[in-house]
C-alpha cells in the first residue's frame, strides 16, 4: 500500500510537468507442436513528455534509453539477438521484428549529413554494448538500405538509416539480465518468469529491443518494446495432458506488477482461439498462493503459411565460392524485398550474379547494389520483385575469397567467417512481415602454421633470407676504390628511399593497392580534363 501511494504521488507530480508514462506486459503461450511450445514476452513502455517542461523524472521508462535517443538523435532503433534457427515450416511466422542468428542493429537518425549519421551509429553501437552487454563493435554496418529490410523500419526517407548484422554474436544470460533491467517491474509481474536457465535451454531464443521517438514541436512520444521469444521442447519432460507455468519456467507467478497498465497472459488454443488471463485482476496472487496456469498440449491446426527462405553455399576451395539464397513463395502472390549483406572479406563477381525462378520465369526485378566505400565496409545487394503463388526463386552470388592481413583474422581464423543471413521482407495485401534465411560460414584462406611442412618452408625461407646476406657480407672484404661520379647512385638511392617512405606511409595509413590505383586513375583523369 505504501508503494502504491508513492507511485501515485509520483504520477501526480509527473503530470504537472506534462509527463505521462505507461507500462504494459504480455505473455503469449502457443503450442506449435505436441512437443514444442512457443513463448513470447512483450514489455512495452511509453513516455510522453514536453521538451521544455521536462523535469528529468522517470517512472517506468528507462532513463538510459531516453538518453540514447536524445544524445544520438535516434528516431527509431531495433536491436535483435537470436540463437538457433526458426523453423518456418513447423512454427510458422517468426516473431517480429524477425531476428537472424547473431545480432542485428537497425537505426534511423536525424542528421544533417551522412557522416554525422555514420559517427552517431558508431557511438550508438558502443553505447549498446554497454546497455545490453554485447560485443558488437565490429558489426558490418551498411549505409542507408533503399528497400525495406525490417517491417517496422518502413520507407521513410527523411532520416538516415544504418543497418548492420553480426552473425557470429552469441546471446546469453548476460543479455537477458540487461534487458530485464530496462523493465519497470524487474522483480514482479510477468518478468519473474524470465528464468534464464529455462529460457536458454531451448531450441530457439531471440530477444529484441525496439525504441522509437516521435516529436511534434516540443511534445515528444517515446516508445520502447522489450521482447523475448523462445521455443521450448517438451518443457515438462513428462507425458501429461497439460503443461503448467511451473513446468515451462520452473517458477510460478507469485506477484503482480503494480505499475503496469495492463498485465496479460494469452494462451493460444488448438483452433487459434485465445484465452486471456488478466494478471492485474487476480486478487489472490501472492508469494504464498502463486498463480498457476495450464497450457493444453496440442498441435496448432491452423498453421499460417509463410514465405520460406534459406541460404546455402557452394565451393570448398580457398579461392572462390558461391552463395545461393532460395526463396519459395506461399499460396498467394507477394511482393518481396531481398537484402543480402556481403562482408568485405569476400569479393563479389558482379557479372555472374543471377536469379533463376521456376513457373513463370524470372519476374521484373528492381535492384540496388551498394558497394563498400571504406576498406572494411560491406556490400549490400537489394532486390525487389513480385512472386506468383508457389513460385521458387534462387539468387546465385559467386564470390572470391580474400587473403586478409594478419590483424584482420579473428583468433580462431580456421573456424571461418560468416556471411550474414539474407533478409526477406514480404508485402501482401493483408499483411507484411520479415523473415531471415540462415547465415553461411566461409572458410577463408589462412596461412597454416600448424603443419610442420609449412613451418619448414617458412623457416627455411626466412633463414635463407636472413642468413644469406650475413654470410655473404661476412666473407667479403673491403677494397678501396677511387670515388667517381655518384649522381646515378644518388638518384637510385633517392628513388629507393622514396619507395620505402611511401610503403611505410601506406602501411601506417592503411592504404591498399586499390586505393592507390584509384588515386592514380583520378589523377590521370584530371590531367585529361586539363587537355
Amino acid at each position, binding site marked *: 500500500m505504501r508503494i502504491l501511494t508513492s507511485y501515485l504521488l509520483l504520477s501526480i507530480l509527473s503530470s504537472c510537468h506534462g509527463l505521462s508514462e505507461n507500462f504494459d506486459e504480455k505473455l503469449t503461450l502457443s503450442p506449435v507442436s505436441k512437443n514444442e511450445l512457443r513463448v513470447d514476452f512483450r514489455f512495452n513502455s511509453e513516455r510522453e513528455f514536453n521538451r521544455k517542461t521536462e523535469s528529468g523524472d522517470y517512472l517506468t521508462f528507462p532513463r538510459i534509453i531516453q538518453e540514447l535517443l536524445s544524445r544520438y538523435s535516434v528516431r527509431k532503433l531495433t536491436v535483435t539477438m537470436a540463437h538457433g534457427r526458426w523453423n518456418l515450416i513447423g512454427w510458422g511466422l517468426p516473431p517480429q521484428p524477425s531476428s537472424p542468428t547473431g545480432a542485428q542493429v537497425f537505426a534511423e537518425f536525424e542528421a544533417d549529413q551522412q557522416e554525422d549519421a555514420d559517427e552517431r551509429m558508431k557511438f550508438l553501437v558502443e553505447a549498446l554494448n554497454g546497455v545490453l552487454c554485447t560485443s558488437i563493435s565490429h558489426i558490418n554496418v551498411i549505409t542507408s538500405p533503399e528497400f525495406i529490410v525490417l517491417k517496422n523500419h518502413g520507407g521513410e526517407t527523411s532520416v538516415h538509416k544504418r543497418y548492420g548484422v553480426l552473425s557470429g554474436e552469441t546471446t546469453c544470460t548476460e543479455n537477458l539480465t540487461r534487458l530485464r533491467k530496462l523493465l519497470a517491474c524487474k522483480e514482479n509481474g510477468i518478468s519473474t518468469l524470465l528464468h534464464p536457465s529455462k529460457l536458454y535451454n531451448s531450441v530457439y531464443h531471440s530477444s529484441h529491443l525496439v525504441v522509437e521517438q516521435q516529436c511534434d514541436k516540443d511534445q515528444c512520444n517515446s516508445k520502447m518494446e522489450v521482447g523475448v521469444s523462445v521455443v521450448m*521442447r517438451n518443457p515438462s519432460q513428462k507425458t501429461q495432458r497439460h503443461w503448467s507455468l511451473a513446468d515451462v519456467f520452473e517458477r510460478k507467478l507469485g506477484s503482480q506488477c503494480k505499475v503496469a497498465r495492463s498485465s496479460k497472459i494469452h494462451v493460444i488454443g488448438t483452433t487459434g482461439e485465445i484465452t486471456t488471463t488478466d494478471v492485474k485482476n487476480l486478487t489472490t496472487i501472492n508469494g504464498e498462493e502463486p498463480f498457476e496456469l495450464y497450457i493444453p498440449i496440442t498441435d496448432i491446426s491452423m498453421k499460417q503459411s509463410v514465405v520460406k527462405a534459406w541460404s*546455402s553455399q*557452394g565451393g570448398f576451395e580457398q579461392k572462390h565460392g*558461391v552463395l*545461393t539464397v532460395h526463396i519459395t513463395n506461399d499460396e498467394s502472390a507477394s511482393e518481396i524485398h531481398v537484402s543480402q549483406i556481403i562482408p568485405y572479406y569476400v569479393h563479389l563477381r558482379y557479372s555472374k550474379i543471377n536469379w533463376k525462378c521456376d513457373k513463370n520465369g524470372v519476374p521484373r526485378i528492381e535492384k540496388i547494389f551498394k558497394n563498400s566505400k571504406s576498406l572494411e565496409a560491406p556490400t549490400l545487394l537489394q532486390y525487389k520483385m513480385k512472386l506468383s503463388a508457389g513460385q521458387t526463386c534462387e539468387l546465385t552470388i559467386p564470390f572470391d575469397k580474400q587473403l586478409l592481413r594478419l590483424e584482420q583474422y579473428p583468433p580462431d581464423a580456421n573456424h571461418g567467417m560468416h556471411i550474414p543471413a539474407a533478409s526477406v521482407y514480404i508485402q501482401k495485401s493483408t499483411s507484411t512481415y520479415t523473415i531471415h534465411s*540462415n547465415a553461411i560460414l566461409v572458410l577463408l584462406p589462412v596461412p597454416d602454421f600448424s603443419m*610442420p*611442412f609449412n613451418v619448414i618452408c617458412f623457416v627455411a625461407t626466412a633463414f635463407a633470407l636472413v642468413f644469406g646476406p650475413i654470410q655473404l657480407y661476412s666473407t667479403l672484404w673491403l677494397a678501396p676504390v677511387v*670515388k667517381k661520379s655518384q649522381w646515378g647512385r644518388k638518384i637510385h638511392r633517392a628513388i629507393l628511399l622514396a619507395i620505402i617512405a611511401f610503403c611505410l606511409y601506406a602501411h601506417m595509413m592503411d592504404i591498399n593497392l586499390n586505393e592507390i590505383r584509384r588515386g592514380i586513375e583520378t589523377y590521370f583523369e584530371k590531367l585529361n580534363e586539363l587537355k
Partner: protein
Amino acid sequence: MENLLKFTNKKLKLLEMALEISKDGGTTRPKILDKILKFRKVALIIAYIGAYLSAQWLFDPVNMEVTRISEHSLMPGLVTPKFDKSGIAIQLYRRFSDLPKSKSQQELIHTIFSDLGLECFTHKWRSKVAGNPMNGENVYGFIRGPRNDGAEAQMIVVQLGRSEKSRRMMSRMLAFVDYAKDQVYWARDIVIVFVDGGEKNDSIEKAAFALDAFLLKYQKIEALNSKKSITVEADEIQAQTGALIGGVVYDLSGMAVKGQHIVNIQTNGLNGQQVNLDVFNGITKIADSKHHSRVAIFGTLHRHSNPYMEYSPFIVPMRALYTQAFISIEGIHSVLGKYGVQGLTVGLSHDYSEKQTGQFIEEVSRMLNNVLERLHQSYFMYVLADDLHFSSIAMYIIPLTILVSPLVISAYFEWTKIQEFQFPVVHLAFHVLGFFYYIATTYVFQTIGTTFVLQWMQWPFVGIDGCDGQFTPSWSLINSFLIFFMIPLGPYVFLKEPVRCVPSMRIVCLLETSLVLYGICLTNFGLAILCTAFVVPIVFLMTYESSDRTRSIFRSSVLAILNPISVLAFVAINIPGMFGQLFPTISQDSWLAAAQSIALTAIREDVEFKVNHFFLLCCFGYPIWNMLFACSMRYGPEPQGSLGIFGNGSDDDDGDDDDGPQKTNRGHSTKKNKRE
C-alpha cells in the same frame, strides 16, 4: 719538397677513395661439390643402401612419432554415450529384411525419415562416361541441430544394399537418426547419405561414384564453374546445410575373433590424400577406450595386439605406401577429400550389438560436433605404422631424397661438362605426344566407350560402332592405347634424327625425373617412393655415358622392355602375395591381361574420379621413357662443337674409365685435348 707534395697529394687521393665490398676468391666452384662428383659411379649403390637404412630406421614404429590429438575439443573421453534405441534398430532391420522386391530401399528409408519428421530426399544420378555407364539413386536426409544456425555440418554415409551386413548397418544408422533428432546439443547439422552402390563386386567404386555425384551437387561445383559436369548427370540438391567439416562412412566390415572386436579403418583418399590424423586418432581412441576394440588399418592389426600372428613391423608401413600409391578407391570415403571433406571409412565389428553400434556412431558424431575450427591442427601427410605410430612428411621424405640424389648428382656432373646447353625440341614433342595420347584416350573413353571406329563424316573422326561414315572395324580402346603406348618411338626418332646435344638431353631427363618424383612425393608419397625405387636405377643407368656400342644396344633393348606399363604389370603380377591384389579383376598368370587391366583402371579412374595415375603415365612416364633412348643409344664421344665440353679437370678426377672421351678421341673436346 716535391717529394713531400707528391706524398701529400697521394694521401689526399687515398682519402678521396671509397671503400667497396668485393668478393674474395672469385667464382670458383665449392670443393665439396667436386668431392661429391667423385662418388658419382657408386652413387646409385650408396643411395640404395642409404635409403634402405634410413627407411628401416624411420619406419620402425619404435622410432616413429606417437599419435596424439592436436585438437583438444576432439577428446572423445568427454562424451558419455546415451544411445538406447536398440529396439528401433531391430524393428527396422526386420522391415528391411521383409522388404518386398517391388519396393526399393530408397522408398523405405524415405518413409522412415518422414515418420521421424525429418527432411528426406532422393537423388538420382547417371554416369555420362560411355566407357563405364551406370546409374543409381541416393537417399539423403538431415538432422538439423535446433540450436545452431545451419552454417556447418558433418556427414555420415552408409551404402545401400540387400546383404545382411548392409541391412544391419542401415537399420542401426536409422535408429541413430531417431535418437539424434531429439538431442539439442548438435552444434552442426548432420547430413546422412545412403549411397547406391549396387550389388556387384564393383559396388564400392559405384558407391564412391554415387557419393561423388552427391557432393558435386552439394558443393555446387557446376554453379561455381558455370559449366555442367562431363562425367555425371544428377538431380539438384533440394535442401542443404552448411559447410561440411568432416565425414564418416560406416559399414560392418570389421570382425570379432574370440570375442575381441576389431574395427577396420580406412584412411586413403584419391591421389594420395589422407584424412586429417586427428579424426583417425579420435576414432581409434573411441574404439580402444570406450569399446575395448582393436583397430585394424590396411587389413592388419597392431602386431603387438595380434596374438594370432607374428609379422614384421614394416608390413603395415609397406602396405600403407602400397595402398596409397595404387589403390585410388580404397573405400567410399576416398572421394570425400576431393570435395574438401575430411573423411574415412569405419568398418565396425559385425558382432557389435545394436546399442554398441549406435553408441559408437554417437561418440564419433559428438566428437566431430565439438570441433572448434576446421580440421587443420594435425597431419595430413603421414605414413601409419599402426594405430599408435606414424611418420610425418618431415621424416619420410629423407629416404626419397637419398634415392633421388644419384639423378641430381648425375645432372650436376653433366652440367659441369657441358659448354653449350641446347634445349632438345624433341623433348617437347614427346610431351605433346604423351598429352595427345592422354586427351585422345580419355576423350574416347568418356564419349564413345571402350571400342571405337574411325569415321569420315564429322569431326572428331572417331565414333561408335555402326555410326555414319564408319570406315574401319571397331577397335578396342585399351589395346589401341597399349599398342601406341608400348611401341618405343624413341629409337626410331633418334636413329633417324640423332640428338645434337646428348648431355643437354641427359640433363633434361635427369632433372625432369627428379622433379616429377619429388613433386609426386608432396602429394602421394607411396607412389613417389615406389616409382623412385624402379625409375631411378633405370634413368641413372640409361643416362650414363657409354663408349661401347654393344653395351648401348643392350641397354637400349632392355629399356624397350622396361615400358612403364610393363613395369607396372610386373609389379601387379608378382606382388599380390605380399600386399594383396592390386587389380582384383586381372588374371594372375597373363601378362597382357594385367597390362590391359592396369590401363583400363587408370583410364576409368582418371575420367570418373580425376585420379592422376593415367595423366602421369602419359605426360611424364611416356616422354621420359622415350627420351631415355636418346641417351641409352648414344655411345662414344659426341661430335665436337655440338655437345658438352669438359669445363675443367673433373673428368680426370672422377677416374671414369668408361667415359672414354679421352681414349676414343671421337670429338669430345676435353681440357686435356685443349692443352694438346
